[in-house]
């Protein structure tokens, strides 16, 4: 066997991210089916949860360590991963389509003269070829593509692929100290948005729109999100009106999301909003207008005033959660 898959595992604050476990799982599945070897690589100063990988079938984690890399640096990461891929003759490189994965993978692809399949929501093997499916036009259509380059760089949309448990007999960390890194572009500070869950990573999203009538009513949305452990989202209309920050916007020109459960509260469902959330597993819509397009894709709908219904909904969910 000479072919190899490289799986990049992203850490933030020394913790390997949930979406990286999803990529690890898909990587293992591909390696088995294609009869490829596989390597798992992370970069950073310290990693605290690497042993969690064991129950997901990872037997060795290569940790490229440098004390200056507690935060991300595109220049350093690109160089390290390129060297690693070439030394290990890895031809398929898998990433999660996170902020870091999106930033890093295209630069690496150019270094390896590889094509990129980004933001995949399905990845199948047909013969010896990898066929990727990805949303285009913010999810209004899907394209099926394949790469014909020698090296292949793939990024998987978070929250779509499942992290499957696969017990392995042993687990070890292969620590490689890196003496010098290229820090020409580097993160110097992280500004957290007050401890909230990001819409791109959430299992449940509670989104509000114009039907909330004003920014002063958004705490009702936040309260429901809190009892559900959900992220708060927003329609473009309320972001453009300045009620909410753009980081919460769901839809085309915002974030495209696929949570298990999506609440559209006072959102009529303009086409650019539907594009961004219609792949959610379950959709709940509450809207006054019975003809609102959101009802055409909602699993459960209530035609009514969101300001009246929302507090009751929050209370009812609180009851069953307690």
């Amino acid at each position: 066997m000479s072919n190899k898959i490289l799986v990049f595992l992203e850490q933030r604050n020394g913790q390997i991210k949930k979406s990286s476990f999803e990529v690890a799982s898909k990587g293992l599945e591909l390696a088995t089916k294609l009869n490829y070897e596989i390597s798992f690589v992370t970069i950073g100063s310290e990693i605290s949860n690497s042993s969690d990988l064991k129950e997901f079938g990872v037997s060795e984690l290569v940790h490229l360590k440098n004390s200056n890399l507690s935060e991300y640096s595109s220049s350093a990461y690109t160089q390290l991963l390129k060297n690693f891929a070439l030394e290990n003759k890895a031809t398929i490189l898998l990433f999660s389509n996170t902020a870091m994965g999106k930033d890093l993978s295209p630069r690496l692809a150019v270094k390896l003269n590889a094509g990129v399949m980004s933001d995949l929501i399905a990845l199948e093997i047909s013969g010896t070829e990898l066929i990727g499916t990805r949303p285009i036009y913010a999810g209004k259509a899907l394209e099926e593509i394949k790469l014909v380059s020698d090296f292949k760089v793939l990024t998987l949309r978070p929250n779509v692929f499942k992290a499957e448990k696969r017990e392995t007999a042993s687990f070890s960390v292969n620590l490689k100290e890196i003496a010098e890194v290229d820090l020409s572009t580097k993160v110097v500070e992280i500004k957290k948005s007050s401890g909230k869950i990001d819409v791109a990573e959430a299992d449940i999203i509670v989104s509000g729109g114009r039907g909330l009538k004003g920014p002063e009513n958004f705490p009702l949305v936040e309260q429901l999100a809190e009892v559900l452990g959900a992220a708060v989202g927003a329609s473009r209309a309320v972001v453009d009106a300045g009620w909410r920050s753009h980081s919460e916007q769901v839809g085309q020109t915002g974030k495209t999301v696929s949570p298990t459960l999506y609440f559209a509260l006072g959102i009529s469902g303009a086409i650019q909003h539907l594009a961004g959330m219609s792949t959610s597993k379950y959709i709940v819509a509450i809207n006054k207008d019975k003809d609102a397009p959101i009802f055409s894709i909602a699993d459960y709908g209530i035609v009514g005033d969101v300001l009246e219904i929302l507090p009751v909904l929050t209370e009812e969910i609180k009851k069953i959660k307690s």
Partner: protein
Amino acid sequence: MKIVVCVSHVPDTATKIKISADEKNIDSAGVSYVINPYDEFAIEEALKTKEKIGGEVYVVTIGNEAAKESLRKALAMGADEAIHLKYDGYLDSLNVAKNLAEEIKSLNSQLVFMGKQSIDFDNCVVPQMTAELLDYNSISVCVSFSLDGNKVTCEREIEGGKEVVESQLPIIVGAQKGLNEPRYASLKGIMAAKKKTIQEKNCTFTNNSVELIKIKKPASKNPGRILGTDVSVVPELVRLLREEAKAI
């Protein structure tokens, strides 16, 4: 200093996408095309930077004849020069990046702005690829930009917050919504833009590394149930979410 902005010409966000019979493209009949929304933030940032440090703003696009409209829009906003790299067909991201890199190199620009992604194929890779081809620095998905001499500081959106990223020229910056408020073109700007000459060049095409198999519609969701019209159905909704959907 020459500041370059790369723009693309895309279907408007309100467009309903229909797929062509050969499943290789979208049916463009009745589709209205606009400048990629993220590119407007890129143009605005380039114009603001020019106002501070001087220079000229060059706007570059790759596309068919219709893509000139997006160049005109950029000129109307205040860009100085426009270059049209003509190509009608499917170019993968790497091919797009190679052509943009060539043009940036021939303009000898050290500062390039692009929309973080175009809203047609949504790849979010061209700014970074172009930078790597040129051996430039890059910062993607930026919501703030500042330039101090050669030093560049940007805030970039990440999950649950922002990263403050430091780098230096030469650089390609990917513009995210929130970076600024794009200006409206003035009537005078629109009139002047109509008169400006757009420089035309041909794209070079090397084999695509991405091969399109087909474009298809996402599986359509069946409309679900309207449970009722007031708060009395809330307990039923919660029960369904718990027992039927098993989602809470």
